C-alpha cells in the first residue's frame, strides 16, 4: 500500500489543480452495495466519479470501473479510466494497458455498426415501417453502448417518423432522454420529457416515477432547485413500492430520497416541509430509505438546527460522490445553513453572537463574516451591534416603507415625465443631434436629387435640407 501512496497523491494533486472535488473522508456507504442499485451505463460513470474524487475509495472504485468498462464495448471509457489508474496505481494489474482487448472490441464494434447499417438499409428498401423503426432502435442502442452518443441520439430520433403506438413514442422519448442525460444536455432532456408526458400512457405509474426523477435531475442541474424539489416530491411511490426502480439506469431510489430531501430543505419553509415532505404519504416510502434525511428534516422543522446541520455534515462525503449532486452540494448546503441561521434568529429581536457561534460554529470558526455576507445578500434581515456583540433584528416597518416608497415613486415619476417632455420639446424645436458627416457623404454620393423638401413651421427649410441644398 505504501508503494501506491505516491501515485495516489500525484493523482489527486492533479485533480485539485484542475479544481475538481476531492473527498478525504471515507463515505458511509459500501461501494459494492452502492453500485448494485444501478444498472446500465451510469454504473461506470458513478464508479469513475468516486475513483476520481474519493481518496480512500479511489483504487477500489477505479478497478471496478476498469472491470465495468471491459464488460461493455465502450473503448473510450476504458481509455478514460486507464488514464486515471495509470497515475493512481501504476503497479497494479489494471495499470497495464490491455491493447488486445481494445483492438478486438474496436474491430467488433466496427463490424457490428456496419452490419446494423446494412440491415437498416435493407429494411428501408422493403418499406416496412416497423422494421425500419426497430432497425434504427438497434443502431441507436449499439451506438449508445459504444459511447457514440451523438450518433445514438440521431439514430433514436430517426425512429420518430415510424412510430405507431403511444408506447413506441414513449420508448423513443426515453431513449433520447437517456442519451441526453449522459450528454448533460438539460434543455434537450426537458424537451423530450414534455413530449412523452403529454401522451396517455399504458403504464402510468412507472412513467410518472421515471419522468419526475428525470425532471428533478434536470431542474437541479439547471439550478432551479425549487422546481427540482417539487418534481422529486411528486413521485408517487405507491403502496407496492419496490426498491429496484424503473429508473435504476439513472438513479437509485436512495438518490431520489437524498435529492428530494436536500432540495426541499434548501427551498421550503418549515410549514411546507411538514406538509410536502414529512406528511407526504406518496414520497414517504422513498424517504424511509434514507432515514437520516427524514431525521434532518424533522430536526429542522422542530427547530433543532444544529442537529440538522450535524447530520448533513456527517453525510457530506457521501453526497459529494454523487454524479449529479456533487456540483450543487456546496450551494445547497450553504443555503440550508443560511436558512438554519435565519430560522434560529427569527424568534429573537436581539441575539448574542456568542450563542450563534455556539450553535453553528462548534469548531470555533468566526461567524461574523458569514453573518455579514448573509445580511449583504438580503437573506438575514438584521444588523450587527459590534460593541455589545449582538445581532439586532430589523423589524420591518411596512408603514414607513410604504410612505417612503410612495414619495419616492411620485418623485421619480415626476422626474421622468419632465425629462420626457423636455426631450419632446427639443425634438419639436428641431434640435436633435444628427450626423453631419453622414449628410455630406450622402451629398458626395450624388443624392441631392431627393425631392422631398421639409420645412418647419416658420417656413425655413430644416437643417438636413439646408446642408443638402
Amino acid at each position: 500500500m505504501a508503494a501506491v501512496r505516491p501515485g495516489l497523491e500525484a493523482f489527486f494533486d492533479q485533480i485539485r489543480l484542475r479544481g475538481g472535488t476531492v473527498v478525504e473522508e471515507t463515505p458511509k456507504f459500501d461501494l459494492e452495495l452502492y453500485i448494485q442499485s444501478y444498472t446500465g451505463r451510469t454504473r461506470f460513470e458513478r464508479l469513475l466519479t468516486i475513483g476520481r474524487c474519493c481518496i480512500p475509495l479511489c483504487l477500489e472504485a477505479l478497478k471496478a470501473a476498469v472491470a465495468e468498462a471491459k464488460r461493455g464495448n465502450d473503448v473510450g471509457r476504458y481509455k478514460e479510466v486507464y488514464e486515471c489508474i495509470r497515475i493512481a496505481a501504476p503497479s497494479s494489474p489494471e495499470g497495464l494497458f490491455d491493447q488486445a482487448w481494445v483492438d478486438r472490441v474496436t474491430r467488433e464494434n466496427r463490424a457490428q455498426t456496419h452490419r446494423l447499417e446494412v440491415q437498416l438499409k435493407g429494411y428501408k428498401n422493403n418499406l416496412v415501417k416497423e422494421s425500419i423503426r426497430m432497425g434504427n432502435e438497434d443502431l441507436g442502442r449499439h451506438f449508445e453502448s459504444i459511447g457514440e452518443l451523438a450518433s445514438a441520439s440521431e439514430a433514436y430520433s430517426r425512429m420518430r417518423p415510424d412510430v405507431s403506438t403511444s408506447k413506441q413514442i414513449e420508448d423513443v422519448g426515453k431513449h433520447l432522454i437517456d442519451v441526453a442525460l449522459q450528454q448533460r444536455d438539460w434543455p434537450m432532456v426537458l424537451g423530450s420529457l414534455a413530449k412523452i408526458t403529454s401522451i396517455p400512457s399504458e403504464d402510468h405509474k412507472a412513467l410518472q416515477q421515471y419522468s419526475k426523477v428525470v425532471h428533478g435531475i434536470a431542474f437541479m442541474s439547471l439550478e432551479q432547485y425549487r422546481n427540482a424539489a417539487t418534481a422529486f416530491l411528486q413521485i408517487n411511490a405507491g403502496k407496492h413500492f419496490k426498491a429496484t426502480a424503473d429508473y435504476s439506469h439513472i438513479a437509485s431510489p436512495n438518490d431520489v430520497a437524498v435529492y428530494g430531501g436536500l432540495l426541499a430543505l434548501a427551498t421550503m419553509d418549515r410549514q411546507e416541509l411538514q406538509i410536502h415532505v414529512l406528511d407526504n404519504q406518496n414520497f414517504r416510502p422513498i424517504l424511509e430509505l434514507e432515514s437520516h434525511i427524514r431525521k434532518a428534516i424533522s430536526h429542522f422543522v422542530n427547530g433543532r438546527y444544529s442537529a440538522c446541520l450535524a447530520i448533513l455534515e456527517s453525510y457530506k462525503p457521501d453526497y459529494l460522490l454523487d454524479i449529479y449532486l456533487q456540483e450543487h452540494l456546496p450551494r445547497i448546503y450553504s443555503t440550508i445553513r443560511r436558512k438554519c441561521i435565519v430560522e434560529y434568529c427569527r424568534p429573537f429581536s436581539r441575539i448574542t453572537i456568542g450563542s450563534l457561534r455556539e450553535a453553528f460554529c462548534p469548531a470555533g470558526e468566526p461567524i461574523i463574516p458569514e453573518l455579514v455576507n448573509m445580511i449583504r445578500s438580503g437573506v438575514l434581515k438584521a444588523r450587527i451591534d459590534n460593541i455589545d456583540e449582538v445581532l439586532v433584528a430589523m423589524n420591518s416597518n411596512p408603514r414607513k416603507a410604504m410612505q417612503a416608497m410612495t414619495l419616492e415613486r411620485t418623485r421619480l415619476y415626476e422626474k421622468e415625465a419632465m425629462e420626457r417632455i423636455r426631450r419632446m420639446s427639443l425634438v419639436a424645436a428641431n434640435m436633435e443631434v444628427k450626423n453631419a458627416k453622414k449628410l455630406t457623404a450622402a451629398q458626395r454620393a450624388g443624392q441631392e436629387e431627393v425631392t422631398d423638401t421639409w420645412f418647419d413651421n416658420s417656413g425655413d427649410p430644416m437643417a438636413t435640407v439646408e446642408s443638402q441644398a
Partner: protein
Amino acid sequence: MDQVLLAFPPDGEISDKTYDTEVKKHINRVESLFREQTSVVLPATPQLLELVNPSVNSISFLAIINTLKHADNSTVPVSRSELTKHALRFLQSFDARQIRYVGESFLHLVREVIDLKWIPGPQAVQVLAAVILRLDSTGQVLTSTHCSLAELAFESGQLAPVLPVIEKPYVFVPAMADQSAPQYLCDLSASPASYISHKTGLTGKLTKDMVMHYDYLCGRIFSSLRKWDEAHAAFGRVVTFPTSDGTLTQTMIDAYKKWMLTGNIALGRRPELPPYVHPTASRNYGVMGKPYLDLATVFASGSAPDLRSEAEKSAKTWEEDGNFDLVKEVLAAAQKWAIMDLSNLYTRLSLNLVRELTKSGQTGESLATEQEVEDLIRGMIESGMLRATLTQQHSDGTKCLAFLSRGEDLSEEEFASKMKGSVDSLKALGHTVETTNLRLTMNKDYAKHVLRDQKRQEKGDTNDPGIGFEQSIEDEDLMTGIMHTM
C-alpha cells in the same frame, strides 16, 4: 404727457380682451409721443422717471429708459449713473404681464446688461437672475437669457445667485413646432411656452449647442458648489440629449465623463444610462468614456486600493479632460460610501473597526488614526449624508459609531402634507403635459390622422379594433394558412 404715460393700466378689473386692446393702444400712443414730441419729453424725463412707477406702468417706464439710452448724450438731462439706477429699479420690479407686449425692447435692455454695458458682471448676474424669475416664475421655458446668465455667472464666479434659476428644470424651448400663441398675450393662465418666443421677442434664438452648453455649465456650477446630485442631473440632461442616429457632440462626451464622476460621488455607485438613450449613443459613450466607465466600475466594487490604482493608471486622461479635481473628489467619496454601506450591516461598531473595514480612496490604505476616522464621520454627519451619532463607551472609553434608522418616521399629518406636496407638483406637471398635448394635437400629421379616423367612423366600420384584419380574412385553414379576400 403724464396722462399718456400713466394711462395704462386702467383702474379696476378688466377682461383679457379689453386689456389686450388697451395695451396695444397704449403702446401706439407712447411710441408716437416719444417720436413726435421728443424735444418736449426729453427735458422732462427726470421728473417722469420719478413719476412713473416701473412696477405699475412698466411699458411707459421702459419706453422712457429706451428713449434716454438711444438719445444723444448731450441732450440727455439724466446722468448715466442715475439712468442705471432707474434701469435696475425697472428690471427688478417690472410687471411681467405688460412686458409680454414689448418683448423686443425689453430683451434689448437685458442684452445690454448681459454685455455689461450697465453694471459690472457680479451685479449683472444677480439682476439677470431676478429678471428671469420675474418673467416666468415657473422656469419652464429655457431662454437665451438663461444661457447668457449661466455663462456670465460661471465666468465671473458668482455662482450662488444663479441657483434659483438653474435649479428649476426647464421643459420647453422656444420655437417648438406647432406651438400656438395664446389668443391674448396678457392671458395669465397661458403657458409660458406660448408667449416666450421669438415672435414676442422675449427670447433670442436658441440652438442645440446653446442648450447643451447651458446644461453643461449648470453641471459645472453645481459641481463647484459641491451640489453633486444637481450636478449629476444637469450633466445627465446633456448626456440624454435626443439624437436621431446615436451621433454625439463633443459637449455630450465631455458631459458624459463628468456625469459618470458626479454619479459616483452623488449615488455611491455607477450611474446607468436611462432606457431612452439611443442604443448607438450609449455604445459610443462606452467607447469614448472608457477610462471613466472603468473607474466607476471599480468604484462600485468598493475596493479602495483598486480604485486608487485605477485612478493613477489614467491620470493623464483626467488631466487632459480637466477632470482631475473631480476624480480627486471621487477618491475622497469612496470611503464615505464605504462607511454608508456599513450602516446596512451594523447598528453600532467601534471606530477602530470602521478604520479596519474601510480604506481611503486617496491612499488605498486604512486611515492612520481613529481621530481621522472620527473627523471623516463627523463631516459626513454634519453634511447630512449620514444619519448616525458618535458616542463613547463608559466602560473602556472606546469610541463608537451608532447608525440611526434611515428616514424619519412620519406622522400621519406629516405624511399627508408631503403627499399633498407631491400631488401639487403632479398637478403642475399636468399643466405642462396639457401644454405639450395641445401642441402635439396641432401637428399636421396628427390632424390628418384624426380626419381619416373620422371618415372611417362615418362609414360605419367602427367595431374593428384589428384595423381591417377581420374583413380581409375569409377563412383560416390550418393546412394552408390564412386566405385573404383582398
